[in-house]
């Protein structure tokens, strides 16, 4: 397979077929918490793309330089450290260099530290022993999948808001039901790419 078809299939596979939120159920808390408005959902999604891409690149290097064969069991804790520090660094730099973006992202940026999708991608690609290129494709694809899922969700939620929902379903319950239905819809992508 040529390079571009590998790239394309890799991104499609990570973004849609194995969507991080809707088929692997990682990163649910920002997915539910920050999907009230499309504008904030887009902000959160782009912030996640940036952080996932950076963090998987750095964790790949750390994994291959420091965590050799006999230190594999330290992956989780080291990756958490790296991701937390990375988010902090990005925040500090943004605050100085691009204050408008920093203000727009607001509280979402530090929230990404606790987004398990970020850690999930780093650990997953380390465990599957991907090459650096594969890791990058996988992480960008996953992050794009998160953006797609959260923006779709916010669009649906904006519409749900004005509907006449039964009292007991108001608020979070209807959102969870919606998320379940979306997951079923995304299940339809299974099998579109061999494997």
């Amino acid at each position, binding site marked *: 397979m040529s390079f571009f078809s590998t790239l394309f299939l890799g991104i499609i596979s990570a973004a849609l077929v194995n969507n991080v939120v809707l088929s692997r159920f990682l990163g649910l808390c920002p997915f539910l918490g920050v999907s009230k408005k499309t504008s904030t959902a887009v902000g959160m999604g782009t912030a996640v793309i940036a952080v996932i891409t950076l963090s998987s690149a750095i964790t790949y290097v750390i994994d291959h330089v*420091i*965590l050799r064969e*006999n*230190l594999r*069991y*330290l992956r989780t*804790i*080291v990756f958490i*450290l*790296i991701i937390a*520090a990375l988010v*902090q*660094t990005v925040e*500090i*730099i943004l*605050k*100085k*260099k691009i*204050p408008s973006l920093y203000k727009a992202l607001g509280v979402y940026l530090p929230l990404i530290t606790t987004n398990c999708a970020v850690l999930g991608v780093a650990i997953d690609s380390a465990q599957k022993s991907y090459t650096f290129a594969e890791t990058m494709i996988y992480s960008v694809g996953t992050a794009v999948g998160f953006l797609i899922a959260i923006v779709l969700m916010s669009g649906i939620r904006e519409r749900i808001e004005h509907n006449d929902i039964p009292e007991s379903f108001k608020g979070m319950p209807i959102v969870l039901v919606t998320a379940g239905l979306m997951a079923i819809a995304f299940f339809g992508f299974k099998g579109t790419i061999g494997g």
Partner: protein
Amino acid sequence: MIVPILIACAVIGVISIIIGLVLGVMSEKFKVEEDPREHAVRELLAGSNCGGCGYAGCDAYAHAIVHDGADPTLCAPCHEKSKIGAIMGLDIKDTEKMIAFVKCSGNCHNTVDNYIYSDGKDCRIAYTAPGHGAKKCVYGCCGLGTCASVCPYDAIRIVDGLAHVDRTKCHACGVCVSVCPNRLIEIIPERAAYAVRCSSRSKGKDVKAACSAGCIGCGMCQRVCENGAITVENNLAKIDYSKCTGCGKCAEKCPCKVITVGHVE
């Protein structure tokens, strides 16, 4: 046995120290100069982001006070305005603790409905219905809880079709005052011993027909008040809290028992 533990500790420790150093250097290098007054003012504000001041939140209001010269007395829940004044070099007096008060007694027992209003979602919509909602009194509380839904402190409850303010939770931010279509909620001093629990400007006879607990504007309170704190205008008694001493004679004499404060059943 002990060696792998030590190796793990060493690896994590070294990584943490490096990360700590990097973060420390970064935060110094990319330091953003913030006005220390902004932080100090922010600490004095209520910090509940109720939006009663008209700004997007406490951070935005603190920024506006320090940089844009905004009026520093707008934060209703904050009672240390003199301290904000001291920070900003202005002479501001501390304000009295205020509280929201619903000027209506028309619960389901006291008043009756003219018709059945079934779209019970928002008082502001009900207000556009004939007679300003289903209740016979056109001035009364619609009881659909728009004030309760906007209260950032969860201090308002609808009991028997009438809004009640929980005095322990209310911070007098004034958000409810602006949403009530009947303008029934007033911010009064918390020390106020007595207040008129009615807003009906109808004549006595009409009030009696609509509600058993309304102010009929008889003027008894005005006559009995020794301090001249009560005036009856447009068939409705009004208390001047700067003159009221809290003697309670008005409440005693009121034939409709509409002068009261606190939770009435």
